[in-house]
């Protein structure tokens, strides 16, 4: 038996999330922000209902002018806050940055703990917090893709595993930049590191006797490996050093699952270089112009 089998009811599990979402009015509230608008774009604060029901938050930046514009979804990071959409992206795209349940701006009444979020409810797929967090991403994606300003335009999603899961379950995304791994082969990855957030898994498994099997069963539902075949668009995958948890050999099953749609990007570890490469790729996928930051690198 594989260490990381796809659960038998994988499809039913996620279909139930979709069904639940479909039965909930997103009840959109859009609030204009004067402070966060600028000469190129208008910023809105968006509030939406996701499963629970729970009220989530997103930034939505819309360029000035007639449009339509390509769409860019930034899925939430692992942390209590997310940066608002970047000035450079706001000139080119309709950008949504999502706060999932528990993150700042979506933290009433539930505030996520760090460390702590990763293992919340992890003993059962039905109670795992990421069931709701993925739903939050899907709800945000639905809304972004429904905006009239992006009609007929390409759409990209950028982020960690949540970007892959979102693209897998919402076919409107033509490009995915998968830039950070958390749930990918997690039960193999966690013992090889002492860094958070994976260390949360190590702590949980060490602290709660016999929990490893239950945890493994739960996280299989969110492993991008099992979602990869459903992704319709092109995928840029950040690949790290050989031997690391983002090394080419560790990622090989993932790349196979994506098939020809995936393209590896071997990171240089130079933040400027890596940013500009990813930006150029996204821009090309969205039919837009790159906005490199290194061209004006300061000279030491």
């Amino acid at each position, binding site marked *: 038996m594989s260490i990381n089998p796809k659960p038998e009811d994988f499809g039913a599990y996620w279909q139930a999330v979709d069904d639940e979402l479909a039965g909930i009015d997103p009840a959109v509230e859009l609030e204009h922000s004067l402070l966060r608008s600028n000469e190129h774009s208008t910023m809105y604060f968006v509030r939406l209902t996701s499963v629970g029901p729970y009220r989530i938050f997103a930034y939505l930046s819309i360029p000035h002018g007639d449009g339509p514009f390509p769409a860019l979804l930034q899925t939430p990071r692992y942390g209590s806050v997310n940066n608002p959409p970047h000035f450079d992206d706001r000139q080119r795209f309709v950008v949504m940055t999502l706060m999932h349940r528990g993150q700042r701006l979506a933290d009433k009444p539930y505030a996520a703990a760090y460390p702590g979020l990763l293992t919340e409810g992890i003993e059962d797929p039905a109670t795992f917090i990421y069931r709701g967090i993925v739903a939050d991403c899907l709800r945000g994606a639905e809304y972004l893709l429904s905006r009239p300003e992006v009609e007929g335009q390409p759409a990209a999603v950028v982020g960690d595993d949540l970007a892959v899961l979102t693209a897998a379950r919402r076919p409107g995304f033509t490009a995915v930049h998968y830039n950070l791994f958390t749930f990918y082969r997690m039960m193999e990855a966690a013992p090889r590191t002492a860094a958070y957030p994976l260390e949360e898994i190590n702590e949980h498994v060490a602290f709660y006797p016999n929990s490893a099997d239950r945890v493994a069963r739960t996280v299989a539902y969110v492993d991008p490996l099992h979602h990869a075949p459903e992704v319709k668009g092109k995928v840029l995958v950040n690949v790290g050093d050989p031997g690391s948890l983002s090394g080419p050999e560790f990622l090989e099953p993932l790349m196979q699952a994506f098939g020809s749609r995936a393209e590896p990007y071997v990171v240089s570890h130079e933040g400027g270089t890596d940013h500009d490469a990813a930006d150029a790729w996204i821009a090309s996928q969205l039919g837009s112009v790159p906005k490199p930051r290194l061209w004006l690198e300061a000279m*030491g």
Partner: protein
Amino acid sequence: MTRGMAADHVTSVRMPDDFDAFWDELLARAAATPLNPTLEPIPLRSSDQVETFEIHYDSLDGVRIAGWYCRPRASYIPPPYPALLQVPGYISEPTLPKSWAKLGYAAVGVAPRGKLRSNAQFNPGYPGLLTHNIVDKETYSYRAFYIDACRAVDFVQSRPEVDASRIGVQGGSQGGALTLTTAALRNDAITCGAAGAPYLTGFMDAASLTHSQPYEEMNEYMRLYPEREEQVRRTLDYFDCINFAPRITAPMLVTVGLGDDVCPPETAFDLVRAMSGPVEMITSPRCGHDAGIYWTQSRIESFLAEHLRPAGIEAGR
């Protein structure tokens, strides 16, 4: 748009006449506040080697500050331990510094007000901290925030297992700034500091050089309230790491990415130029806000170890 040599940049930061008086008065006020430290063990995040605690202590305005505290178990490494303060970035969570404790440090993950678990009484939101009450030095968000970080020095000094003659501080971005401010304000106690990609340095110059968060908050604020510029500059001069730099006496390591779009390297050069104590600066071409950590991490660790001599590293663990 052209951009000159970062090393040639001329800062617009001015030193207020009463800069030292302002901070000395606040430090005195803090010192007069009983620390009331508490430690709650967290078995889930402890191990055979390291014991983890959630800590709390009092700071200015009666605000209770949280933190993580990780120390080696005596069975693993006997005390005394050097202390290492890990100070957090702007969007980062406070560090749970278990891995540092494994090296032999009594390590504190500091959570100044507004951070998770320290935000019950002060919570300007995110984004927002950078411009919160920015028109007045007496009420600007970072006034007590800096002091909260300094109070972590008092915390480790209160611990019997800590050798208070060895206290280091380290962090990146806002953590880089807090490394500098803490080393400056507590130059009586800090042994060394490692600051990566320091934020809160040349605020207004930085905002004019970038549109990345968090400095973009400043641009958004100034776009809405252009008439406040002078008032804002007057406030920020009291909070700028460039003005803290002359107070720093301990050896410092400063790491900078020359392609940093978040904290422009120009401001780091301005900073280093203002430092009068021993400083080692490492610049990494084409690196961004990572400040070249891929290459500098080992140097940061060895720098701290040279000055703080943790037993775990000395023993080669």
